[in-house]
């Protein structure tokens, strides 16, 4: 744990200070001096660490993204501790494995709050675990900052203490793709689209949003079907999509089904003009390993890319790669986890306290610069930014839209190359 980070501690503090400064200065405290490592401890007891409780999906079916988020938390904690801690106190992560089971997650949050008496809470991976656990946090009036529960249901119950740390909610994930398609010249614009999708709350929100917009613009839906999360056989699905003659495929996928869809399409020689997957391509390393050159042309939407030029991203990437040297491609979830830390840090500094009610109030009133961009929240914790449109080109993930975004580093290829 004590490995020296190549980047000097001062730069960490600087980046934190920068991020806080960059946030809307609604609160006077945001310019407070405590961000510097030498600052005196703001709230006693100063010799005791600040404990952040997490119930994370470290094993079970959500363990991969769960672990990635957790890595993001760790990178953030290490950076802060190396820089002298938060409010002069060290940070400690009190973490339990919920095995991707919701009951267990709820029990663990109960334990974290009532037995371990942690100071702060982070959220778990996925909406399905966030929904029940956020209710416990709400009950105990604990701010629940989470990077991976963006399904509409999370916000349905008007919780005051839940904050989703991604640029936008699921409904808007495919917005850049839709905008891109509709902006194509009339003779190139596809006439029909297929929506093979996994039954998943996040995916559903994205796909419904995109389908509505495309239909409204006259792009016919020739195939729409939902398969269970457990589907592993895509042969018949591919055959049916091909038979529908769809020019564009909007696959509502997580990861494995994105890979399996590509394989199934390729094996029956189905060549659509554009393919967009909700998730999957974003897990760059694994996706490339599974599909090799067949990745090219596939599009996806994401809140973050490794090459992002957002303030602080370079440092995050460097620290992450130093801490997890075995990995080359950083999973997006790690950035989400890291952003959660950034948001919490900003709020604690902003309020100069560990009072969760104050923190929640502060977050509702401010926005925070994260590696995923600048994010602010509405009354129920919904973020207000937008996603990027990405495409694999020459085996590399490029940002191709929106044009206005400073991260854009390539133009989209359309129609996509053959598999």
């Amino acid at each position, binding site marked *: 744990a004590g490995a020296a980070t190549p980047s000097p501690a001062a730069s960490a503090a600087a980046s934190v200070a920068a991020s806080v400064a960059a946030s809307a200065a609604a609160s006077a405290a945001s310019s407070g001096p405590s961000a510097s490592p030498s600052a005196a401890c703001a709230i006693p007891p100063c010799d005791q660490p600040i404990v952040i409780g997490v119930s994370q999906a470290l094993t079970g079916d959500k363990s991969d993204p769960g672990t990635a988020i957790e890595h993001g938390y760790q990178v953030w904690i290490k950076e802060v501790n190396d820089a002298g801690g938060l409010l002069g106190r060290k940070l400690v992560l009190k973490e339990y494995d919920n095995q991707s089971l919701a009951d267990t997650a709820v029990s663990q949050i109960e334990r974290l709050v*009532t037995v371990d008496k942690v100071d702060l809470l982070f959220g778990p991976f996925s909406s399905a675990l966030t929904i029940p656990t956020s209710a416990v946090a709400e*009950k105990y009036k604990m701010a629940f900052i989470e990077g991976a529960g963006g399904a509409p249901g999370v916000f349905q119950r008007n919780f005051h203490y839940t904050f989703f740390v991604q640029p936008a909610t699921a409904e808007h994930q495919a917005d850049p793709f839709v905008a891109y398609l509709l902006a194509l010249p009339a003779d190139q614009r596809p006439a029909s689209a297929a929506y093979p999708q996994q039954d998943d709350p996040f995916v559903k929100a994205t796909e419904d949003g995109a389908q509505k917009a495309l239909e409204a613009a006259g792009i016919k839906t020739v195939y729409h079907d939902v398969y269970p999360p457990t589907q592993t056989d895509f042969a018949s699905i591919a055959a049916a999509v091909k038979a529908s003659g769809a020019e564009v495929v909007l696959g509502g996928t997580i990861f494995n089904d994105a890979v399996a869809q590509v394989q199934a399409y390729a094996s029956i020689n189905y060549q659509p003009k554009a393919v967009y997957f909700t998730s999957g391509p974003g897990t760059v390393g694994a996706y490339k390993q599974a599909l090799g050159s067949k990745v090219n042309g596939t599009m996806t939407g994401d809140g973050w890319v490794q090459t992002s030029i957002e303030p602080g991203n370079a440092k995050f990437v460097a620290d992450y790669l130093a801490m997890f040297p075995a990995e080359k491609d950083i999973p997006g979830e790690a950035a989400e986890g890291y952003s959660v830390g950034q948001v919490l840090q900003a709020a604690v500094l902003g309020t100069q306290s560990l009072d969760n009610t104050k923190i929640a109030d502060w977050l509702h009133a401010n926005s925070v610069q994260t590696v995923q961009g600048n994010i602010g929240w509405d009354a129920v914790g919904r973020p207000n930014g937008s996603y990027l449109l990405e495409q694999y080109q020459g085996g590399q993930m490029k940002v191709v839209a929106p044009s206005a975004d400073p991260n854009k580093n390539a133009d989209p290829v359309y129609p996509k190359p053959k598999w």
Partner: protein
Amino acid sequence: MKLRTVFPIVMLGLFLVLPIVVREGFYLDLLLFTFMYAAMSVGWDIMGGLAGYVSLGHVGFFGLGSYVAGLLVVHFGIPVFLSAPFVGILAGIVGAGLGWISLRARGTSFVIVTLTFTYVIQLVALNLRDITGGSSGLYLPLLTLPADVVILPFYYGMLVLLVVAILVSLAIRRSKFGLGLVAIREEEGKADGSGVNTSLYKILAFAISVSFAGVAGALHAQYLNYVDPDLAFELIITLNLIIMCLVGSRGTLWGPVLGAFLVQPLSQYLIYLTPSGIAGQVHLVALGVVLVLVVMFMPDGIITTWTSRRGGRGRARPVDAPERLPEAAT
């Protein structure tokens, strides 16, 4: 009075007043889940222990209960604590239906049909998106109670469920009905030929058996304020029930209860005691190893093994296989 009657009553009294002393939500949460599992195990044992029909489908009814109660509160505003008993009855009726299908096929087919039932009902919950919310799940309104008492209705609710389950199980065991179920377990055709209407007995037993799971599911849904197809149909729940019955002793009144009170806290603490990165895998492997070891070395469970050590006669004796080679199982 004998220890056997006094002890449970004392324990019940203790659990009733416990929340006054213990305020940490976590401990009440742990007990609440223990009550829940104990009640469901007692229910499972009515079918699995007495009648000898192993059900792998109890979680299906648990999920059914969750969904029905959830839908009732979401669409009609009927509070779960009001609807729970009726949800239990409904689960029993569906159980009777499933029983009707699967009990025609004996033994093994029953095991398998109940297992697939879980898949079927999960699929239905997933696919009836307009009603159930599909994979997005159902959001139940939160109880409007202060943070430190909001857990109590669930704590007492599960406790009541457990007490009712034990009383029902006791009544069955003492009755002709219970005797008939054991007869079914031992030699079904002969039982029928002795005037035991086996279909009726089995269907009734299965209905009673699953109704506890239905009620538990209903309370559980409100406890988490949320139901989704993964949460409601977690197969490990059924497995837990069976392990609990097995550890405690199948076919006995207190076995499932004892099993639940041992297995649930221990398996929860195992997660807290092992490093978080591997806790889940360790938990899974440990559960499996315990299961295998129990079956190998104490297949009759704690209670039966203990009573037969103490020289209990007849009924408490370990089950057959006295000869070196068993005869064919029919």
